[in-house]
């Protein structure tokens, strides 16, 4: 394992470890003080809201909360794939994996301090600016604060042990620390999710809003869907940021070894991001279904009301993500000798992606002038209107996923020539499976128009299962087919055009923007409620901002986030300069 014992790092560790904890202790004491004040006197009851200068309380909390969430997502996600990569390195004995896992983990040290500081700032702001709602939430969830603080403390212990213990512990001990770090991280996110999901779909309280059952308040209707959705999204987001770091270092590299190493890092980060992106739409769909089931009003606010336009923007962003991810894979094929055979397929894959993207982004109700609406016979176009509903969207996203998978399959095969006797049959079977999957997914999509909504929603399950099963079976066939394959040439890591690295930046920024957008949707759908149907928002900000305003706030937040990320990349780059005896061996 790489040796990274540096006095400067130790100092940074003390800072990184101490600063967040100090903030956290301050925040915890503030919470307890606020709770005590609420029980003890009428002072806090008199003040329901305070005003934040210039931008107002809502925008201030909005920006800080989103920044905290983005850093939190990154800090919780990176250990997940770092652990898996380290484990691969341990099992295979390939030092490059170990080095890569360490490189990913290196990003965590500074990020963790940023996350904790932003979290503490968010706590302060919430208690200062929104004392009424925070008092209420403290009444409901006060007992969850203690395990949260404890887990946070353990997170700090495990994270720094994991990072600074690299190469110093026995590999198995180190892996176990990584595992503990991940479990604690998941615990943290689950507790925090309980607080925010309760605000959307409150449960475990009586008519007057008093707590009846804490577990029910935690396990409210969308708690688990949000947990799952966030876990997957965090991995995707973390992978994309790590890939962006690889791209940054690739572009700044001065030696072929460094370029090769960071090219590989970018590739692995992107692979993680896209692999996690594939099931994400389905997790989101489960979440949406639960919201609709909880309240038709909330469901319509999301999918039929003002917020539905944000989903169109989201569709455009996700379409861009898929396009960029595939683009990166196609450009990457240029560094693989023998992959030229597959270039001719790119245009068909691109056509499929474009068509699915168009369907995915088609709104149900179109923005049209009166004349255009009259010509269409209403706000719904007779042809496009059909593409604007979930049956079409589900079909499009499933085929989009399959197409991306095919791109990866071609990339994977790039320099390999099967030597098994049944290669031709295997290819035919794979083709038949793909064809069947596409036809079946489209059939279910079309069938969805002829059945009631409840059945239609359920049809998404066989669609997803078909796609997942297809990917598993085709991968299995591929693995056996390319066992002992003849290698046509090496993968020339580092020989990538710069535009491929900008595609990685584009993916990371798009992920961050999508995350900001969806975070706003989840929070904003409550509209004028702090806790839906329980506690009204009576502040001056109790209105839904215009889409343009919301988009501007999200954009500014993303810009701030990437400014911070640039600082983190720079700091991490300083650390790695000292220890970048990157012993890169060109991969086969």
């Amino acid at each position, binding site marked *: 394992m790489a040796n990274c014992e540096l006095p400067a790092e130790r100092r940074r560790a003390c800072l990184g470890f101490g600063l967040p904890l100090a903030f956290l202790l301050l925040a915890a004491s503030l919470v307890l003080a606020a709770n005590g004040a609420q029980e003890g006197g009428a002072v806090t009851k008199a003040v329901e809201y305070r005003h934040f200068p210039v931008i107002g309380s809502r925008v201030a909390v909005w920006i800080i909360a989103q920044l905290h969430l983005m850093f939190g997502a990154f800090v919780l996600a990176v250990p997940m794939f770092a652990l898996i990569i380290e484990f691969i390195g341990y099992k295979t004995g390939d030092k490059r994996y170990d080095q890569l896992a360490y490189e990913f983990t290196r990003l965590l040290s500074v990020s963790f301090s940023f996350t904790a500081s932003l979290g503490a700032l968010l706590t302060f702001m919430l208690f200062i600016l929104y004392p009424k709602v925070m008092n209420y939430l403290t009444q409901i969830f006060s007992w969850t604060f203690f395990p949260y603080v404890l887990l946070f403390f353990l997170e700090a212990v495990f994270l720094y042990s994991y990072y600074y213990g690299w190469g110093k512990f026995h590999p198995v001990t180190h892996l176990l620390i990584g595992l503990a770090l991940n479990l604690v991280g998941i615990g943290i996110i689950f507790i925090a999710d309980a607080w925010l999901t309760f605000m959307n779909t409150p449960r475990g309280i009586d008519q007057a809003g008093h707590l009846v059952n804490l577990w029910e308040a935690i396990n409210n*209707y969308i708690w688990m869907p949000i947990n799952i959705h966030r876990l997957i999204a965090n991995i995707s987001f973390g992978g994309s940021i790590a890939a962006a770091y690889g791209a940054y270092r690739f572009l700044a590299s001065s030696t072929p070894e460094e370029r090769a190493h960071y090219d590989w890092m970018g590739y692995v980060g992107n692979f993680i991001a896209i692999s996690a992106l594939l099931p994400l739409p389905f997790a989101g769909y489960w979440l949406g*279904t*639960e919201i*609709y*089931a909880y*309240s*038709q009003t*909330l469901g*319509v*606010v999301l*999918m*039929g*009301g*003002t917020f*539905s*336009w944000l989903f169109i923007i989201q569709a*455009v962003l996700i379409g*861009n993500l898929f*396009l960029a991810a595939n*683009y990166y894979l196609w450009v990457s094929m*240029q560094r693989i000798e023998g992959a030229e055979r597959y270039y001719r397929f*790119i*245009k068909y894959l*691109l056509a499929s*992606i*474009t068509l699915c*993207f*168009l369907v995915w*982004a088609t*709104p*149900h*109700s*179109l*923005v*049209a*002038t*009166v004349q*255009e*609406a*009259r*010509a269409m*016979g*209403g*706000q*719904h*176009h007779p042809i*496009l*209107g*059909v593409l*604007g*509903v979930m049956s079409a969207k589900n079909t499009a996203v499933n085929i989009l996923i399959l197409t991306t998978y095919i791109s990866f399959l071609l990339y994977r095969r790039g320099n390999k020539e099967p030597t098994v006797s049944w290669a031709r049959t295997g290819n035919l079977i794979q083709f038949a499976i793909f064809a069947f999957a596409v036809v079946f997914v489209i059939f279910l999509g079309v069938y969805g*128009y002829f*059945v*009631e*909504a*409840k059945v239609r*929603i359920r049809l998404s399950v066989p669609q997803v299962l078909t796609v997942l099963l297809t990917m598993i079976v085709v991968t299995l066939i591929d693995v056996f087919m390319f066992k002992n394959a003849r290698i046509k040439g090496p993968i020339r890591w580092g020989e990538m055009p710069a*535009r491929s690295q900008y595609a990685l930046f584009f993916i990371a920024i798009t992920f961050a923007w999508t995350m900001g957008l969806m975070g706003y949707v989840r929070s904003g759908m409550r509209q004028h409620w702090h806790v839906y*149907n329980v506690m009204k928002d009576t502040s001056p900000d109790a209105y839904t901002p215009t*889409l343009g305003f919301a988009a501007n706030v999200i954009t500014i937040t993303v810009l701030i986030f990437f400014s911070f990320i640039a600082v983190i990349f720079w700091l991490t780059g300083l650390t790695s300069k000292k220890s970048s005896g990157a012993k890169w061996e060109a991969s086969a």
Partner: protein
Amino acid sequence: MKPLVVLILALVLLGLRFLRLSRVLWVPVWWLASYVFLVYGIEPPLPRSIILMFMGIITLSLLAYFSVDSQTLSAAWGAIVRFVTDRRYTIPLAMVVVALPAAVGWVAYRNASKAPNPPLFGRTIHPPPPIEITFKGKKINLTEADNPFRALEKSDPDKFRQHVARGRVIYFQNCVFCHGDNLNGEGLFAHGFDPLPANFADPTTIAMLQESYLFWRIAKGGPGLPEESAPWASAMPAWEKFLSEEDIWDVILFLYDYTGYRPRAKESLE
């Protein structure tokens, strides 16, 4: 779709294959073909907003196609450099230099000389319903409310048919003038309204909604729409002033019965 436009486009694209165009030239060809198809190939015509969005996506895809291969990219870049610097291309270059601002000027002229139009709004077609409404003094929870006669469909089909028949009479006495005798939103008065009356035959309207949602819309009409649905000039009356609760549930039964759609069922919480 306009088959003639599609046929001409297909023939042109097929014909160009024989010319063995380079990848660089195929990009503008496909861009133009897509534009022509979206503007002239679909009937009824697509709104300008959606054409812009689609063309944005298509442009991105074509750029990806164009730039994925380093050789194509450098060949294209070389061609552009040659076009701008080689003396052989002076005349075509001059034509491009004149044509580009001329095209921009033409678009500006066309936009400025167009007949005035009402401003464009992204209107919310399905505004979220309130949790509870008051109907003639009675509170109705829209999240929990069900059509009280829907159960008769199985328990007492004859009685159910009576309610549907009653709904039909109510519809043709009150709603047909705007929503039309085919329930497709093309009633006699429809052409005078903006927004146009809802088209119930569209599989993406009432089939997507629970019956309580329809009850709310019929009972409260245009005046009862939430603010987010602005700009709102809906001519839909608040039918609670003219119809009873039973009348409204009956007419809802008729809407689903006539169109053959099923109302959105309530999902169970997991």
